[in-house]
């Protein structure tokens, strides 16, 4: 089935206007020996068949509709109000391009402007861009900003080992071959050490210090001291924050951060096996010219109406080309819209409720599980909605058992941190009931006996 609305008659009339006899003639510039290859693809199916085939494929997954999940580690199972997808399904939003023509794109532009406003409100920062691909690439772009800010003269980036391992991996990828030295990116480091320990790694060559808040293990450390230390050396500080936690916690802005980034998925975006998600990126006004990505600003049209446009475009690839801070072009527009609708509809009290539910339930779970014979909590720091549980058996083995009981267990920290062999990172959200948690405890208790 195709979506081509041209009948053979119309095609012939068009060929005549063009002045050729066949469509094939239009391709004479293509080297003949490679022209018109036979593609070995399955025969085309109609929509009806495709719908059924995709249903079958989807049924090949066990989804969080069927399983009770305690898996987090950077992607969280939150409730998404129905209204979010209802708005995303409006063709006016999802079938538009980047708003290059503001006269006929004010819907998108105002929506981004509001998204920027919501992100600054949440993070306590002054400016936000229109999005990055995800939390990991947003962190990497923070490195770019800092590197550019010091005109490449500071080559050291300090990153906490308690930053998400995949975020650190992406920073390594992005910075490879640039002569940037990554300090602190060591999975064998002392994980009990608070952020202050990182301070020792900051020197006068340091462009940026990166921490996560709450960190990868769910812990909430007060980063104020570290930020002071970093600033004393002239370095910038980037905080990768969980946006749900920011409903409760002091904002990175208050705490002195220069850049706040993070994964926006918890704000109304489906898990979708890892994407598309949303990298948010906020900073202080003074760095706005170094910031990557689209930026929407308020203005007026020639009828005296308040309106919005893409602004400071001179930073971007289409103008600055090889001297642009980033190459980003297509971003996560629709996901930014999803998060804005989410934040609007849960609002001030709803987001706080979600955050508190996460907090209380995670603490109930930690307390319940930490008391199970053979299990123990691994860190003592305050935490938000994720915590590390030291287990009496390999995590994979435990998870296999849990799965038999319809429970998706936590993340195996041993894959990333040798010292955390047999440690499981568990996430608890508003989606987990007390019964779920008690059931988890029940199965874990069994496993330990087995």
């Amino acid at each position, binding site marked *: 089935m195709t979506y081509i609305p041209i009948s053979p008659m119309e095609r012939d009339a068009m060929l005549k206007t063009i002045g*050729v006899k066949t469509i094939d003639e239009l391709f004479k510039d293509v080297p003949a020996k490679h022209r018109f290859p036979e593609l070995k693809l399955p025969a085309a199916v109609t929509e009806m068949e495709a719908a059924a085939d995709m249903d079958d494929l989807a049924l090949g997954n066990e989804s969080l509709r069927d399983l009770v999940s305690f898996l987090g580690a950077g992607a969280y199972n939150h409730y998404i109000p129905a209204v979010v997808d209802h708005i995303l399904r409006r063709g006016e939003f*999802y079938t538009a391009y980047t708003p290059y023509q503001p006269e006929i794109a004010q819907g998108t532009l105002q929506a981004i402007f509001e998204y920027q406003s919501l992100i600054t409100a949440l993070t*306590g920062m002054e400016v936000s861009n229109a999005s990055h691909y995800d939390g990991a690439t947003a962190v990497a772009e923070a490195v770019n900003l800092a590197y550019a800010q010091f005109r490449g003269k500071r080559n050291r980036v300090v990153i906490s080992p308690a930053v998400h391992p995949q975020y650190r991996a992406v920073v390594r990828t992005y910075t490879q071959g*640039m002569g940037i030295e990554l300090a602190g990116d060591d999975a064998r480091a002392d994980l009990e050490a608070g952020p202050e320990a990182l301070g020792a790694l900051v020197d006068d060559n340091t462009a940026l210090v990166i921490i996560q808040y709450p960190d990868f293990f769910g812990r909430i450390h007060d980063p104020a001291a570290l930020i002071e230390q970093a600033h004393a050396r002239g370095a910038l500080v980037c905080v990768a924050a969980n946006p749900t936690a920011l409903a409760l916690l002091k904002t990175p802005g208050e705490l002195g951060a220069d850049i706040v980034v993070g994964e926006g998925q918890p704000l109304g975006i489906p898990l979708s096996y890892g994407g598309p998600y949303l990298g948010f990126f906020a900073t202080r006004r003074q760095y706005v010219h170094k910031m990557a990505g689209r930026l929407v*600003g308020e203005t007026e049209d020639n009828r005296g109406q308040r309106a919005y446009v893409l602004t400071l475009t001179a930073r971007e690839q289409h103008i600055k080309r090889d001297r642009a801070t980033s190459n*980003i072009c*297509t971003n996560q527009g629709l996901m930014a819209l999803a998060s804005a609708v989410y934040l*609007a509809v849960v609002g001030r009290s709803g987001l706080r409720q979600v955050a508190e539910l996460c907090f209380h339930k995670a603490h109930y779970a930690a307390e319940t599980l930490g008391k199970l014979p053979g299990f123990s909590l691994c860190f003592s720091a305050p935490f938000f909605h994720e915590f590390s549980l030291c287990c009496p058996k390999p995590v994979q083995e435990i998870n296999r058992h849990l799965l038999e009981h319809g429970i998706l267990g936590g993340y195996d920290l041993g894959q990333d941190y040798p010292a955390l062999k047999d440690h499981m990172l568990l996430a608890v959200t508003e989606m987990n009931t007390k019964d779920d948690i008690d059931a988890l405890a029940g199965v874990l208790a069994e496993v330990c006996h087995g």
Partner: protein
Amino acid sequence: MAKIIEPTLFELSSPGRTGVTFPQSDVPPASLPENLLRGILPLPELAEVDVVRHYMRLSGFNYSVDAGFYPLGSCTMKYNPKINEDTARLPGFAATHPLQPIETVQGNLVMMYTLQEWLKEIAGFAAVSLQPAAGAHGELTGVLMMRAYHHSRGDAKRKKMLIPDSAHGTNPASSGMIGLDIVQIPSDARGNVDLASLRSACDDSVVGLMLTNPNTLGLFDEHVEEVIRIVHECGGLVYGDGANLNALLGIVRPGDLGIDLMHFNLHKTFSTPHGGGGPGSGPVGAAAHLVDFLPAPIVGIVEEGTSETPPLYGFIDPAHSIGRVKAFHGHVGMIVRAFTYIAMHGADGLRQIAEYAVLNANYLLARLRATFPVPYDRICMHEFVAEGRLAGTDIRALDIAKRLMDYDFHPPTNYFPLIVHEALMIEPTETENKATLDAFAEALIKIAAEARTEPQLLHEAPHKTPFGRMDDVKAARELVLCCWLPPQDGK
């Protein structure tokens, strides 16, 4: 004070109003870490109805492919089939966590593996990674792979990336971002890569060439094989910017031409919607010698099947991978849509896409070449670039673009590619019918007449849209980038 057409979410907010609320806690409360708590959470307070009406009104200010013709050159704004929106939302896909054990997500993995296979077959590559998030992200992936390839051969001196002057801004930006030096290669009079300039730029310091073919003029390079040969001869690699693959489906496989690696834009060629700016998806395909450098991990068979059991799909790290380019496994939501789309088209359907995309572009070119100058005028592929100037008038491409809005069309891309003055880059795509193309051509011809008789109509356009021309200078000068103020009520 400017007139407010639609208040912001913050302006609509009213203290104490609530939208979606959440259940009471069913666990004993834990004590919050008082010293770490924030004060006011300055989010808006709205009811669900407020939110819906706000976005309904905003949506009414947008032009979209669902609403009409959107010939935005280089962006392949084709119709997005609705079935794709449904398949991507199936809970079996949308409610899976990226870190689930692979045994529980074989549906996702089979699908991703199959899409990798299909993209390999469609473009002639040995392997594909689905990880990159968009075209530019694919480019970044590609240039990192190119450099890693040279380094792996002990060849660390290559620092130059050759980029034709017609290239999209992301090409130089991607190379610049990883510290390469860009050498711009001019185009010849027929819009091809200038061979002499290319030859003289090629030496052992060249990482490679970033080639867009068909290029941003919409032209298939008449010496594409020669271009590739020249780069290969100096030890360079050729990166293909796959943004324009729509013209080549079933027509020619970039890999067969000797392109070493390339990104696909699922959000152009394979019709995943643009979302008002994203998300996209930019898988990268690589020829055999580059497979080991792809981002980690890619989807593969980790346990062969037997006659009774299917193979087990999982993740495999390429031997010399450049590493991860993002968290998790790529934009799976977009991957489901592209998979659905390709499955529905098959080989013949894909070829028809290219054929009709090219037919439509040439038809518009034929109808418009008498009215607007077309600097590189030969049979085009899926798009062409005209000049938005009209002899004897002071009309600019921008004026024409804005005036088109009054005829209920989205304007073409303006001012790109940079090598055409007052560029109007027109890409109709294959999902438009003849009546629409005719109406568009006639509107442009009428506008050209208006340019002579009533130029003010164009200078002041658009007139019929909900908003008029914007004051870009004010935006950049005042830099009002957000609209919330700490509320006064101290709550």
